């Protein structure tokens, strides 16, 4: 079965004002989402990404390294989750119930089986 990865983007402070009660419910929903998929035989895998990083480019005078990739206030990539799905439509459906959508966007892409795919 093809694998699809969802890139979770959001602003750093999207969850900053949650009360303990709201944070509790958010965490429970995140866990529930994963549990449901696991029970359905499609355990999600994934990882979080640090907010700080470096962008490496080859410039005119050699390597050009900048702090980044983020710009203050814009949506940055916070993590990724991969699931199995028959096609992009099904993958979209799976991610459309993810609680992260309350705080930011999810970009769904297929992991190419033969390198990049159209």
């Amino acid at each position, binding site marked *: 079965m093809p694998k699809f990865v969802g890139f979770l983007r959001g602003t750093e402070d999207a*969850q*900053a*004002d*949650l*009360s*303990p*009660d*709201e*944070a*509790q419910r*958010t*965490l*429970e929903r*995140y*866990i*529930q989402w*994963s*549990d*449901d998929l696991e029970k359905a035989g499609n*355990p*999600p*895998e*994934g*990882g*979080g990404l640090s907010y700080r990083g470096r962008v490496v480019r080859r410039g005119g005078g050699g390597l050009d390294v900048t702090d980044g990739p983020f710009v203050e206030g814009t949506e940055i990539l*916070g*993590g990724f*989750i991969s699931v199995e799905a028959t096609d992009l439509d099904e993958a979209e459906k799976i991610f459309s119930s993810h609680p992260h959508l309350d705080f930011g966007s999810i970009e769904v892409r297929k992991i190419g089986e033969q390198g990049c795919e159209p």
Partner: protein
Amino acid sequence: MRALIAGAGRPPAAEPGVREDRASEDTPRTDKPRTDTERQAGAAVGTGQSRVVVEQLFRHSAGRIVATLARVLGPARLDVAEEALQEAMLRALQRWPYAGVPDNPAGWLFRVARNTAVDLVRHDDVVRAKLPLLVPAEEAGERHGDDELALMFLCCHPGLPLASQVVLTLKTVGGLGADEIGAALLAKPATVAQRLVRAKRWLRDNPVPLEVDPSRLDSVLSVLYLLFDAGYDASEGDSAVRAELCGEAIRLCRLLCADKRTDLPRTRALLALMLLQASRLRARTDPHGDILLLSDQDRGRWDRAMIAEGTRIFGSACTGDERSAFHIEAAIALCHAMAPDVERTDWAQVVALYDDLLDLRPSPVAALNRAIGAAMAGDLDHAELGRLENEPALRDYHLLPAALGALWLRAGEPGRAAGYYRQALTKQTSAPTRRFLERQLDRCANRPAG
């Protein structure tokens, strides 16, 4: 790496009391998986197998973490403790969904909050040096709840207005946000936020020690009573949040009962009262979330374990001479809990208890409840009802027209009852309350005048 792997460790919210409170909101609409998680958790505790249950973690850790940090930071810097907690929760939300829940999530939260607090007070070397020595109360082997009790007594300082005591307790000990408090107390979130700001300013300007001061016990009990009532009586708002309020009030009252200094007969009576009332929580609404009258409730859905515990605690509250208003209200709740149905309720006893309550603590709501009890006992007092109808203090009491409607419907005057239900419908109410009133109006139309 699997996303959201539940690690191993001691479930932080595994005290039996907390589990029970949680069960009270286990309505039929509650999603199954949560209930399954609870069962697993219960089994895990029993068998010694540990599986992390994050349920209730933030909510219950919040008060404990703020309380422990406040011990070193002092009451004047309650907001620093809260900001540190906020940061710890944010980091957990950003990390746990990917990295899995750590082995000791409560300890993890505490440490992140403590380290954040160290950063926040970088100009105060004394506090900076003391903070790292703090460990979560449960790891220090201290009696659970000590810091929380002290924080509760701080929030209920008589120097603060009662309304501020309530919101401050809900915020700092109960872990509720301004929006949630507003929804529970039917107040605007902005008003709640303003009260919180003023209360914290007062704490900054008036150095008071963070300690359990038994002379303030009555304030604390009043706040817990209001907290429970806000969860139990509100006709609007998120039902999950309201059930939380009841559970939180019960949990905090248990802490008071577990401490020698505050374990007085009236403390026990309040706990008994809350348990007996909460036993009816899940029977109070139908599957659509609509409110059911006492007479329409399926008593099989009342929580028998809670009633048994409430009854036992009430017995232990009655060993001395003290007879507080909480004692009387608990006795009334017990009359209902013991009755197989409305008809076989000892209404004469209920009326006698309301008489006692009115002697001890007169209030128009108690007078209304007495009149309802009297009517149920077959003694409909027209003059008294007329007086209550015009009682200024009840003018805005949202339950008054509905209560009068129910009485007249019962008394065989459906036309008169319908008038009250129509009056209730002219007021702004939640959709479930509106459906309830409309259903009652239908009953009036279908019942011939007696």
